[in-house]
């Protein structure tokens, strides 16, 4: 099991063919109190970089891009009632969606945790 990060402040946790995607602690802090999350429905297909979800905070509304290509196997329905999970546990229970990877090679282009930490430190 390994975790990857993007410059859009998303994290990707890969287990076999399934990737779980959410936004990082840094992104959560930048957004402030999250009030609404729109997650994609099962079966939707995304190419890397497609808009996959929407997250709204009291400050802004942002799109969440799919960091990798694949087919949605599950959206985190709990967020509809508890959007605050994105603030309290962004890299755990506050995950957005799980998708089945269509091209594992795309993962090579993402950052590992150390690289992401350095990326954030330099912002």
């Amino acid at each position, binding site marked *: 099991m390994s975790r990857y990060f993007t410059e859009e402040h998303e994290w990707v946790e890969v287990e076999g063919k399934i990737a779980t995607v959410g936004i990082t602690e840094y992104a959560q802090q930048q957004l402030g109190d999250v009030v*609404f999350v*729109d997650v994609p429905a099962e079966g939707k297909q995304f190419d890397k970089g497609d808009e996959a979800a929407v997250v*709204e905070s009291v400050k*802004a*509304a942002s*799109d969440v891009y799919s960091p990798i290509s694949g087919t949605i196997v599950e959206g985190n329905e709990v967020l509809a009632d508890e959007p605050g999970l994105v603030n309290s546990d962004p890299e755990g229970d506050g995950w957005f969606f799980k998708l089945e990877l269509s091209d594992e090679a795309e993962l090579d282009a993402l950052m590992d945790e150390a690289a992401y930490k350095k990326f954030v430190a330099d912002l």
Partner: protein
Amino acid sequence: MRYLPLNNQDRSAMLATIGAASIDDLFIDIPEEARLTGPIHGLPMHAPEMAVERHMKALASQNLVAGDVPFFMGAGAYRHHVPASVDHLIQRGEFLTAYTPYQPEIAQGTLQMLFEFQTQVARLLGCDVANASMYDGSTACWEAIGMARRITKRATALLSSGLHPHYVGVAKTMARFTGDALVHQAPSLKPETDIADLIGQIDKNTSCVVVQYPDILGRVEDLSALAQATQAAGALLIAVVTEAVALGALRSPGEMGADIVVGEGQSLGVGLQFGGPYVGLFGCKQKYVRQMPGRLCGETLDAEGKRGFVLTLSTREQHIRREKATSNICTNSGLCALAFSIHMTLLGEKGLRGLAEVNHAMAVTAAERLENVPGVKLLNASFFNEFTLVLPKDARTIVRALADRRILGGVSLGRLYPEEADLANGLVVAVTETATLEDIEAFATNLEELLA
């Protein structure tokens, strides 16, 4: 300091950019015969103010004014009595505001009024939530079709043949740019609506079914079965109400299951005003509120725990979401919404029901009298304050002849559907509380003479 933002060079550059040869080219959509080619006829380039006023009054007096004659025109705009208190109250200084008066720090009065308006509209339409108003009924209708596309991710809208043709026209114009497919045909002169046909047409590509209630011919039908069939196929039911007063007597579309209910609010508080400005009503189910267009005012508590009002769910809107906003509307019909709200407040629920009752009773009286004119048939099996007559000859010429006799006797279907020969004998007649028994008798007698 004089502020002259543009010179002729700037204008030429702008025209060249958009490919227009002259400023006049920007108006070619207006039929040539309707364009003013020189100064106003009979008015010299220089004249004293009093002479100009007299001349303009003489021109205006060529109009046959709704309030001066027996008046039976409707088809989307209705003459109702607006109490003088409405106009008095909307002009009070407290309601005078700067443009876009939505800042909670300085506009609690306006925001509270919008909140009250939304509450009234939501209750009238039978919806969980209503917005702070749209431009008019037709644009509200189009916005509802777009909203259904976003929710269902499908792009074929079934428009009932009973939907006002001007609303269809607005939807067609907008669909040219969004790519929505609109399925529509002209109505036929039958007592039944096309609800059964619509149910048969719904498929997995249908984003929504749009049905008018009462429809363009004045017909009223239960929407419950249509709502169920539409929703069972994963599509939305949009109901359109062009005569808001009807909902003082009829079961609301929301109660019958419609997902989105839109309407024209002109009937309450707003006069005919040569066709505008009017006020669009827009309500929907709570679960769709994040896809709703327009301004939405919410009630909240301030830092001291006191009740206050703010615009809410603004992330739907253009100033936050840019091109991903639910709509490009960033305003509302503030003054007309205020007039609507004050008129509704003066009436109260009981008053609205009473007004609706008077409308229906007068319409029944008129329908019975007009049906007795030899050769005239009443189409409707049911109606509120508007019904369709089938005349033995072209209704358009009869309406013209009635106008010459100073009676405005309804809207001919030939005017609304110039391409449809089958509808030429149809005449849509609206009867509100402003009609008197004498008006009805004058209409019937003259119609009888013209048909003899």
